[in-house]
């Protein structure tokens, strides 16, 4: 293989891994605090839609980012209210977030722009252009979130409390710290990260919003989170690996195998998902989630 193709694949792998990484870190924050978040997909989707619409309306990618993050936080708070304050089932709430996001973005998009749910194409300042080495600023922000997450969780008071609340909220409560406060903070941080990931999709990687443009990335991010055993640096590795698979799949399109002929596009596109299943089933060993993940905190009586 010549170096040109290799460089193209790696470059494209980085590009493709960024939304995964943003969502994966969002899930990491949420789940380390004990709130299971399968609504990553939905949050990225509303962020992508809101960011594209705002960038188009205000002519600024940065305003787009702001609205993307706000939309994502709003959905994160819905999930927080359902699962922290109301102690509802976190899986059900997450599913609801995903369905709501998928429906809402398509309907509102179509009502506003009449283009089947798409936003009009973004150009110029409406998009995040190249920042350094041909990548947009959001790539670097997301990459920076890895060491920041690692440091805050491991070395700060907030991080210690957050790790504790994901393992044993009663211990945090009896130590005189608010369980709900910590969990809401984590969920909002997750919202911000999903907002960045979603904005990246519609305003940096693409030029505008398409219905369902997240295409399962939120779920792949969850797989990466388990693969990384809920830790920040391994999350970077896992997301890059999935990005790489995606990039290779793109390169393989139109490639013919001797004796079989051209590989169908669908089969290639299924590759990352297939790899996820294989990796999760066989290679990584036992991944133990935070002990209190998914369990609403109720004072015993």
């Amino acid at each position, binding site marked *: 293989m010549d170096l040109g193709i290799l460089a193209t694949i790696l470059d494209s792998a980085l590009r493709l891994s960024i939304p995964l990484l943003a969502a994966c870190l969002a899930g990491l924050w949420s789940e380390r605090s004990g709130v299971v978040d399968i609504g990553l997909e939905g949050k990225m989707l509303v962020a992508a839609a809101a960011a594209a619409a705002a960038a188009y309306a205000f002519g600024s990618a940065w305003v787009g980012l702001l609205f993307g993050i706000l939309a994502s936080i709003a959905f994160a708070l819905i999930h927080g209210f359902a699962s922290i304050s109301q102690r509802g089932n976190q899986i059900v709430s997450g599913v609801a977030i995903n369905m709501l996001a998928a429906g809402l973005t398509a309907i509102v998009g179509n009502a506003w722009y009449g283009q089947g749910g798409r936003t009009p194409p973004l150009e110029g300042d409406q998009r995040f252009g190249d920042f350094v080495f041909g990548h947009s600023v959001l790539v670097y922000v997301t990459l920076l979130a890895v060491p920041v997450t690692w440091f805050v969780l491991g070395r700060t008071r907030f991080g210690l409390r957050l790790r504790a609340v994901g393992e044993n909220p009663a211990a945090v409560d009896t*130590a005189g710290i608010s369980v709900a406060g910590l969990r809401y903070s984590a969920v909002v941080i997750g919202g911000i990260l999903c907002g960045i990931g979603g904005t990246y999709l519609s305003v940096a990687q693409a030029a505008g919003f398409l219905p369902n443009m997240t295409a399962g990335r939120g779920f792949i991010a969850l797989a990466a989170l388990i693969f990384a055993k809920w830790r920040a640096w391994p999350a970077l590795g896992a997301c890059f690996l999935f990005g790489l698979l995606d990039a290779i799949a793109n390169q393989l399109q139109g490639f013919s195998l001797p004796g079989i002929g051209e590989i169908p596009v669908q089969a290639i596109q299924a590759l990352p998902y297939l790899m996820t299943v294989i990796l999760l089933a066989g290679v990584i060993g036992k991944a133990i989630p935070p002990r209190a993940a998914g369990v609403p905190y109720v004072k015993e009586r």
Partner: protein
Amino acid sequence: MSPAIELIAINKSFGAVHANKDVNLSVERGTIHGIVGENGAGKSTLMSILYGFYEADSGEIRVSGKPTRIRSSNDAINAGIGMVHQHFMLVEPLTVVENVMLGAEGGAMLRAGEAKVRKELARLAKDYGLEIDVDATVAELSVGLQQRVEILKALYRGADTLILDEPTAVLTPPEADALFELLRSLKQQGKTVILITHKLREIMAITDRVSVMRRGEMVATVETANTSPPELAELMVGRRVLLRVEKTEKAPGAPMLEVQNLSVVDARGVLRVADASLTVHAGEIVGIAGVAGNGQSELLEAIAGMRRPVLGSVRFEGQNIGAADHNPHQMRKLGLLHVPEDRLRMGLVPAFPAFESAILGFSEEPQLGCGPILDHDRLVADLARKMEQYDVRPPAPRLKTSNFSGGNQQKIVLAREIERNPKVLLVGQPTRGVDIGAIEFIHRRLIALRDAGVGILLVSVELDEIMHLSDRILTMCGGKITGERKASETNEQDLGLLMAGVTDEAA
């Protein structure tokens, strides 16, 4: 000097349940104050109010004479109150240092606070003999050491008054002794200790004063020196109780159950029972003493046929039980019945009406109905009769199983098994979560059964219970049987050492 803690006219209701009724309590500074009462008497609720877990509906809390509002654990900590919960409030994957500093980190960055915590822990280790590896994760520590972390947490946060909720439930006797030594040294340094327990022996051994609660009310506070276990038991229950049921010496009969070289491996591949051998004769109670989690449960389940042993054999009435026949159904048919230790998980179906729970495992018996159809009226009548015999309250066969108290649920299980005329009865934790009054009843029943010639294998973590009931006592530690004693020829210290794994050969 004003008392360390005063609770005045505390009331607390949960729905229709009046958990605390006008409770008054005064705890003198520098004393160890015991609080006793049956399950549901309101002890834990009262302490949860003092520690800010719940807020009282009415009443006043005074700390060192000052009226204090305690609305959260934080308020309690600031008022100098620390609590060691029965179920430890520790974060297992975190280290001792991290657990101690949680909630009092001393700044946004951990590094600065950590040095302070280490210094303070070293000081506490010196002052009170609370040595511990501060960099170990809590999950790696033994239960006794985890409790030590809880105490260190409270002391680090500046507790003057320490509340301990059933602290010895999870400890070996030597660990419990060490804890009491520590509590005495805390007292000498001017700290106040509130000890919640249902073990009257502990109350007598260590407290200065003791308060008794019954059905949400504080019924008495007495100087420990001026009272006795029978008097305390009577105050707790509201009537006279026998703490120790008399039993006569009796020569055991033929061997009924013989277990040879049994080994059990659990689902995770850990060896839980290692090469255990024992024999139970007719008309004999064999007790297995040990701290919870040392293989007793697995041994009992393996004998009952619920777990397949990896090695070893079981003989019943001299007949070898083949692997194919070694299941609960077959063993029951042979006359080996089982009162499992976790009645809500293995003994009953909480959501069933009592009369259905009362035939679990026996629903195929022909007299219970007509073919596959169960005769409900008949089941109800049967259970009503048993409920009268076993003094189950309320005597309502159609009531949901979960609506009975622990002691009454246990009586339903006992009635079901005992009335099937066992030849051998396996009994696990027969009085866990059972009130003193019901304990007396259950003990009487078991002894009557033994006198009638039934062989009983008893597993209990309550050493008192083992010593009162058993004719012969085996001790288990780490899955091995570490010793055997005649009940008449041993004492608590002796058994405590065996339970801690100090075997005869080693000693």
